[in-house]
């Protein structure tokens, strides 16, 4: 593994920026362009950049959780957000919105929770693919 000082310094500034932007895309995804899928992909590319600069093992230590548990929890959150519709309207996945408006992200409701599930799912799957490719590479 060749470690480049320029790349390490650049990624130290780029990764927080990409993670913040992915979260911004996730939060406003339900009424403007963006959403969980794109946000998850941007977050996964931030981790891919870290993996190129520092190797796979430090990336897995930085992430702390396994990608598989990210996939499972994302799916669980996405399915559970659908049950709010059953409780309030009797229809699965019907959107339930709170009335209060927030400055940047607008109204909050179950579609935001569903988007968070999609975000975790896409992040987990992309990280699983990236880690497997890198581990195969190192062997």
């Amino acid at each position: 593994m060749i470690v480049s000082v320029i790349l390490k310094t650049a990624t130290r500034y780029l990764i927080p920026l990409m993670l913040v932007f992915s979260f911004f895309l996730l939060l406003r995804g339900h009424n403007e362009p963006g959403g969980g899928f794109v946000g998850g992909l941007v977050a996964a590319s931030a981790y891919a950049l870290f993996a190129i600069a520092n190797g796979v093992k430090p990336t897995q230590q930085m992430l702390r959780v396994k990608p598989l548990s990210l996939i499972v929890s994302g799916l669980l959150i996405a399915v559970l957000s659908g049950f709010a519709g059953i409780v309030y309207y009797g229809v699965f996945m019907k959107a339930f919105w709170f009335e209060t408006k927030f400055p940047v992200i607008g109204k909050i409701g179950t579609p935001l929770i569903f988007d968070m599930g999609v975000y975790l799912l896409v992040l987990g799957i992309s990280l699983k693919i990236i880690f497997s490719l890198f581990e195969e590479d190192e062997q």
Partner: protein
Amino acid sequence: MSFIDFAICFSLVVISVSLLLLFVRFIAGPTLEDRIIAIDLLAVVGVAFIAVYSMLSGVTVFLDVAIILGLLSFLGTVAFAFYLERRNKR
């Protein structure tokens, strides 16, 4: 025609010419490194084009696309460099 309109039209022309020159380099580039630099510069010129088009159309959402393209093109260049380094080692 106000000055800002003239500036937008002029920069669109300049960006288009630079895109054409980039494609010439992309096709003719003798080595792989030339083509990778052409791809990297293509993303930067794309960011410039998106910014100018966002001013022309007045849709500010396009600027977010420009930000994402700028962040991800760096990743693409780094990945290509990683691949080149591994290829040269063999």
